[in-house]
């Protein structure tokens, strides 16, 4: 498949999230994976992205529990945010849902969960 310059925009990425699909970009030049979408390959600086569907499975690399939230999310606190290392090797920040806060730990397996917060599709993770 021919590599294109912008196969997936940020808007398209989040619309795919809304539809239940987590999508990364694969560099057609060096094979590096990146998520969410960006202009240049962080490894080789090429613009040769191809979209790749991810399985949405990963483990928690680090996390925090937000007790004092930004105003727009104040009603949701406390809630957990985690950097999740996905099975394919890339990592992304997401909100944890349906996992008791006291059970959240580094290494815990989680699965991608599409969230919509204030009509904005958002990356979430729930129990695996």
């Amino acid at each position, binding site marked *: 498949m021919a590599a294109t310059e912008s196969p997936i925009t940020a808007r398209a990425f989040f619309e795919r999230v809304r539809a239940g699909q987590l999508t990364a970009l694969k560099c057609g030049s060096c094979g590096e994976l990146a998520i*969410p979408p960006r202009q240049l390959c962080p490894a080789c600086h090429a613009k040769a992205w191809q979209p790749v569907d991810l399985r949405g499975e990963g483990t928690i*690399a*680090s996390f*925090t529990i*937000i*007790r004092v939230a930004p105003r727009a999310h104040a009603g949701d606190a406390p809630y957990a945010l985690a*950097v999740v290392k996905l099975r394919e090797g890339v990592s992304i920040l997401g909100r944890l849902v349906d996992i008791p806060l006291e059970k959240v730990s580094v290494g815990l397996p989680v699965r991608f969960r599409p969230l919509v917060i204030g009509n904005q599709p958002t990356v979430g993770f729930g129990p695996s």
Partner: protein
Amino acid sequence: MEKYGTTEAQMAAVAVKNHRHGALNPKAQFQKQITIDQVLRSAYVADPLKLYDCCPFSDGGAALVLASEEVARRHRKPVWVLGSAAASDWMLLGDKRDLSRVPATERAAAAAYRQAGVGPRDVDVVELHDCFTIAEIVATEGLGLFEPGAGGRAAEAGRTSLGGEIPVNPSGGLKAKGHPIGATGAAQIAEIVTQIRGEAGPRQVDGAKTGLTHTLGGNTATVLVSLFGRD
């Protein structure tokens, strides 16, 4: 914490130390000492950071006068810029290769030390970006003052306090002196210049000859490290 066993008490030691320093600085926002217990009992904001692990919102200003060597020599106690370097890193947390380190600090420090022809052991006093207590611990490691993972224990042992082997944030730092965002970098340099001139009063680091400032922004994606000295 997961990797090196850094504890909340070690982080609290940074806040207590910076408040102790701030109490010696008539220009600090908080000139009041606090205890480890007060820090540990304060409310969580974003675990493991509690209220007293976080710097305040501040108003403030700072000014620097820069001059050529020729002009500077005609005035009192010039302080020289020995080196100054910026470095960057990925901004998104998911892109960071190792969440326990700040590569931009390590690269900016390496370049600034090289320009100045000095190393971490030659530095007498440091003003660094303690926006959160853990940020000070990680910065002391990234600047080469301590090995990766050893910064928490060093803070707890008093090695970064006034009177310790490498005093960090004698002004009180962002934590107690305050963090007026746009003015913070210049305020750090003002403190280092005051220290190198020997005019810091009760918070003076004895014999301070070489000083370092470290400022970061954008989720640790941008770091500036500068070194200063006198004749």
